[in-house]
């Protein structure tokens, strides 16, 4: 049954998955557009190169977010369109069906991850690095996989949630923003949004994997 669901998903999502794979393949290669040899390069060039690696690295968590968003919503797209009649007609429990859907979407997620791995390896192979600068293709790809998986899980859960749950999430976000406005209006020097953001993105916050250094080449 997993194979059938995977096949259906692939048929429905192959275009965005292939586009995401192309993007994931291209991003690490952008890092090496500054040139292939840094052996005797002047300081300015090495600095530009490191700076470019860091700037391009910032795109990678954004790409993970995009992968998670498209796959998380895309996984349930056809079920939503068919009012879940097909899923309810299947001789499997609801829990098992959700797990199968999650696994199938997670399998498709491996396509952009593999593309990023290929792009990173080609980028690393095409440069000669000086002794103090190192390439980190494996940690980058593993981190990208888990960041994509997290985003995928978030949007997968939001897609299948009830309207009440979705409204609760939206209400929580609006509540935080409203609390900030209220505090500002009464002249209290305290902010809620940055605190919540810090809580979410600082370890062990659930989104901490999206923050931090993402450069393929670093010291």
């Amino acid at each position, binding site marked *: 049954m997993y194979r059938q669901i995977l096949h259906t998903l692939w048929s429905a999502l192959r275009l965005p998955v292939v586009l995401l794979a192309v993007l994931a393949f291209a991003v690490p290669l952008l890092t090496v557009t500054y040139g292939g040899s840094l052996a005797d390069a002047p300081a300015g060039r090495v600095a530009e190169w490191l700076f470019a690696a860091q700037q391009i690295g910032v795109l990678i968590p954004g790409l993970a977010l995009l992968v998670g968003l498209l796959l998380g919503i895309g996984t349930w797209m056809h079920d939503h369109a068919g009012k879940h009649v097909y899923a309810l007609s299947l001789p499997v429990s609801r829990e098992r069906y959700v797990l199968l859907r999650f696994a199938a979407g997670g399998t498709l997620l491996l396509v952009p991850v593999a593309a990023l791995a290929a792009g990173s390896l080609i980028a690393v192979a095409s440069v000669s690095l000086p002794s103090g600068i190192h390439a980190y293709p494996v940690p980058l790809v*593993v981190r990208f996989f888990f960041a994509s998986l997290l985003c995928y899980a978030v949007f997968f859960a939001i897609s299948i949630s009830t309207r009440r749950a979705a409204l609760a999430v939206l209400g929580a976000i609006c509540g935080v923003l409203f609390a900030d406005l209220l505090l500002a209006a009464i002249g209290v020097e305290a902010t809620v949004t940055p605190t919540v953001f810090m809580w979410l993105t600082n370890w062990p916050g659930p989104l901490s994997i999206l923050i931090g250094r993402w450069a393929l080449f670093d010291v």
Partner: protein
Amino acid sequence: MCRRGLLLILALGGTAPVARAQAPRGGVAVARAKLARAESLLAVVARRDSASRQSLYAARRAVIYEAGAVTAVLPDAVGRETGRLVVSGARRYLDGVVPEQFLSARVAVAYAATGVDSVLRARNLDARARVMADVTPRPDSLSDGWAVAAALARAYAETLDSTWRAWLPPALAVGWTLKRDGPAAVRELMRTDTRSGADCLAGGAGACRLWLGLDADANPYTARYRPEELRRMIVGRWFAVNGAMDLAHQCTTGSDDACVRLASLGLLPPVPAGASPLSSLLVFVRAHGPAGALARALQDTRGSVGDRLGRATGTSPDSLVAGWRIWLLTGGGQPRVTAGWRDVLPVLVFGALLLLAAVRSGRWR
């Protein structure tokens, strides 16, 4: 000033129309009276301004504050609470940099305090050497004790041997912080146009030693610079030293020897790195070396700066600069891209919770 200007405008505004209209004698008298009144008011304002300024800059009564080995005499205008913050802040800045023996033999004196002699004599502190801290009586200029700490650090630096004195950044890097000043040091390393700096950025420990001037090179200008780098620094500059312009001319027209000879006159910095990267190295030693490493290194008088720092930290100079380079370039050793259990665990936990929520979703119920 504003009040004075306002009065002047009022006075001129009151008299000018009268003058323009060529009023009869009675009108002129009124205008003259108004002018006299304005002038007298101006004089009053000027006297008040002068008095308030004098009170601001006037010497205040001296008060002694102590924190550990740090003793400072500050004007009473500073206030007791701020005074305590100043000396405790200065002590924190100097901890692990300046030995307590040095501090306990000195007293930092802020400007504009009267009766310093009598106050010190009363506490039997008049035998201590006085170090003038460059602050004004305004409490905000004292900040958090940096001015007092910097004055004491500068005084201590003057007692060190010539190797240290020639190398050390101002005030022994007291107050340099990675968060605030680190980006400037990184920028300097990234924008350096010397070969040693470029190789240091690329990871060469030997190049970092050269760029930071850590080795005892017989001729630093030949060891740490390439002739073309010296030439770049010399082009377009004016040297007011006898014979220097001749050497500058020879240098710019192709003589490498002239470039080195000109630089050796002391007209160019012997260390390619500026004060900020040198300060960062001292802060790195203080923060990441064994306890008291920087203070020990500063008391050491054998070998080069690199040898002294290496001995104090118990590592080779190469290991030291390699650690410093990563610390500086990563903003305090923040890890490069990582994917260990620490990173993955929140994803697995949160992902499992989300999956559980999806499985138990009430959408089909």
